[in-house]
């Protein structure tokens, strides 16, 4: 059952990603990406990362994509009048290199396996104490410094975005 849903969500993610890069209307591309994010959130939940699945929906589909759609509608972008993809030379080489990257990835995956020191959080323990509490204990003890730095980063992002996006007043340069 879990397997069926994993394959379904995976297929949905790939199809919506393909739809995103090939559609000419940017609003449709953004909506295809929202579908991709939702299917990835479904995969995270099936893999036992429930907190991250909800955060993915809230942050990516709920905030980032809304921001994208706001900007697309603010700039009033319609269907691409000119060719939405580049000149044929660029497109051919782009697709070739993308497929080359994918083939490289496949070869690496076939030749190696994921192995290493096991951690202290098997899925049974995470199911017992809850995904939120497990992540919370790690976040506030071992990863406290990155947590604080992330909040500073968000502050910098806010200040930068407001500074870049404001309209200049008439009496300043």
């Amino acid at each position, binding site marked *: 059952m*879990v*397997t069926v849903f*994993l394959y379904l969500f*995976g297929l949905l993610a*790939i199809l919506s*990603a393909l739809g*995103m*890069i090939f559609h000419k209307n*940017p609003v449709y591309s953004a909506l295809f*990406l929202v579908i*991709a*994010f939702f299917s*990835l959130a479904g*995969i995270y939940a099936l*893999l036992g*990362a429930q*907190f991250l699945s909800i955060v*993915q929906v809230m*942050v*990516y589909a709920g905030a*980032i994509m809304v921001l*994208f759609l706001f*900007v*697309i509608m*603010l*700039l009033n*972008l319609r269907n*691409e009048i000119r060719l939405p*993809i*580049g000149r044929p030379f*660029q497109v051919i*080489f*782009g*697709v070739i290199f*993308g*497929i080359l*990257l*994918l083939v490289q*990835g496949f070869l690496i*995956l076939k030749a190696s396996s*994921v192995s*290493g020191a*096991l*951690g*202290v*959080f*098997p*899925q049974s323990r995470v199911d017992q104490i809850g995904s939120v509490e497990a*992540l919370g204990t*790690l976040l506030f003890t071992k990863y406290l410094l*990155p947590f604080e730095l*992330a909040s500073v*980063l*968000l502050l910098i*992002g*806010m200040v*930068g975005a407001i*500074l*870049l*996006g404001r309209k200049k007043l008439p009496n300043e340069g």
Partner: protein
Amino acid sequence: MIPTTNLLILGAVLFSIGVIGVLIRRNAIVIFMSIELMLNSVNLTLIVIARQLQSLDGQIFVFFIMTVAAAEVAVGLALIISAFRLRSTVHVDDINLLKG
């Protein structure tokens, strides 16, 4: 539960779809969305490997990647809006002020 290699293949396919999107599209916003897709494929890979290695460090990493991606999208879209105000277009072939 499907083997982890299949999920890693899904991550690789999504990443390369993002790369192809960045390389062939000419709209700055769609290029940016393809970059977000690449970040998400990395998130998927991290969560899969974290589950395989029975550790939550991968999930913490994903948490911070989402934070960084949110800040990056805010600043990047502000930059695109500034470029649009200057050139009235988001077609990257037209934003070539530095060209000789």
